[in-house]
């Protein structure tokens, strides 16, 4: 079945070093203005080939169903996949330790100095771009599913549930998940 090969195509035969996990997630974290998902997908799928597009989306699904910051969950899962517990720890440390220390010092300095309006304007521009990057990342993740109209429909429903209603994320997820999984089960049974 083609789906199986798509899921295992991330290269798991080459042993990834702990240092590589640490530095890659350090980079992801340092780049992630506005949201780390854009950078996590770019690093893990496009540049390092640690996971396939589908596997990345699956891991993200898992993380979205759990409490906590999803992107940190991806660091933990990628580390766990490649090198087990110690790998998860290496990826997590890269993601959290140095960026938090740097951000904390920068922030503390800023809080104690005057606030410039130009900084505020720059941040507005950065945040508009960050939104676009996130939308594009979703678009890229959707590409392997474009052949399944039902998948596109459920993606659109989840999108609409968040954007056009005031429902909490968990309610949208729990409402749509059983339907979407049931449809997938029927389709798989027929295939």
């Amino acid at each position, binding site marked *: 079945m083609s789906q199986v090969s798509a899921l295992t195509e991330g290269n798991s035969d080459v042993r990834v070093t702990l240092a590589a996990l640490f530095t890659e997630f350090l980079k992801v974290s340092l780049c*992630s203005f506005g949201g780390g998902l854009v950078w996590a997908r770019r690093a893990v799928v496009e540049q390092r080939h640690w996971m396939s597009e589908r596997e990345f989306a699956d891991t993200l699904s898992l993380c979205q169903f759990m409490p906590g910051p999803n992107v940190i969950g991806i660091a933990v899962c990628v580390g766990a996949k490649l090198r087990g517990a110690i790998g998860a720890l290496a990826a997590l440390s890269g993601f959290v330790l140095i960026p938090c220390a740097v951000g904390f010092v920068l922030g503390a300095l800023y809080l104690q100095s005057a606030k410039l309006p130009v900084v505020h304007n720059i941040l507005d521009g950065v945040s508009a771009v960050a939104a676009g990057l996130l939308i594009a990342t979703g678009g890229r993740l959707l590409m392997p599913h474009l052949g399944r109209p039902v*998948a596109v429909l459920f993606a659109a429903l989840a999108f609409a549930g968040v954007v056009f209603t005031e429902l909490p994320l968990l309610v949208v997820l729990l409402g749509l998940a059983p339907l979407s999984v049931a449809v997938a089960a029927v389709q798989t049974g027929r295939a």
Partner: protein
Amino acid sequence: MSSHSAPVALAMHLALLSCISFGGFPSVLPDLRNFVVAGNGWVTDQEFTNFFALAQAVPGPNMILLMSFIGWKVGGVPGAIASAVATFGPPCALYFAAYRLWDRFREAPWQMIVRRGLAPLTIGLVIAGGTVMARTGTGWQGAALTIAAAGLMIRTRINPLWILAGGGAFGGLGLL
């Protein structure tokens, strides 16, 4: 409440919140604000807003940063570290355990079905996240910038840092 126990109480509350923060930390922000501003008076409303804006602006795990700013205000640098660990520790343990379990049944037919069902929802939510973020932005110029950025990201292999820098320059020149 003595000054010694305040950081401990904050860390315990954060650990609790992090375990129920389905959909990421923004979902528990209202509760957090109640707890530290109205409930305990550790930070003022204005400080909370400033911390939030600042945490968004620096790269890195911004919700952890927000918690460490609050922890810093409540108990200095040790308070900041305790708050950060309380924020990401419990969810990380959960992620690891769940991934292990998930991975063990990777080839099971039911899991393939669940994966096929969930992936589209996840993707829809990612796009929604970007859209919601764009809506809080500034006018049609901001929207145009968002669309241009999405186009560049999809169509080209430009390092997104350049796109972000371009957006920052746009805003800095007062074009938004």
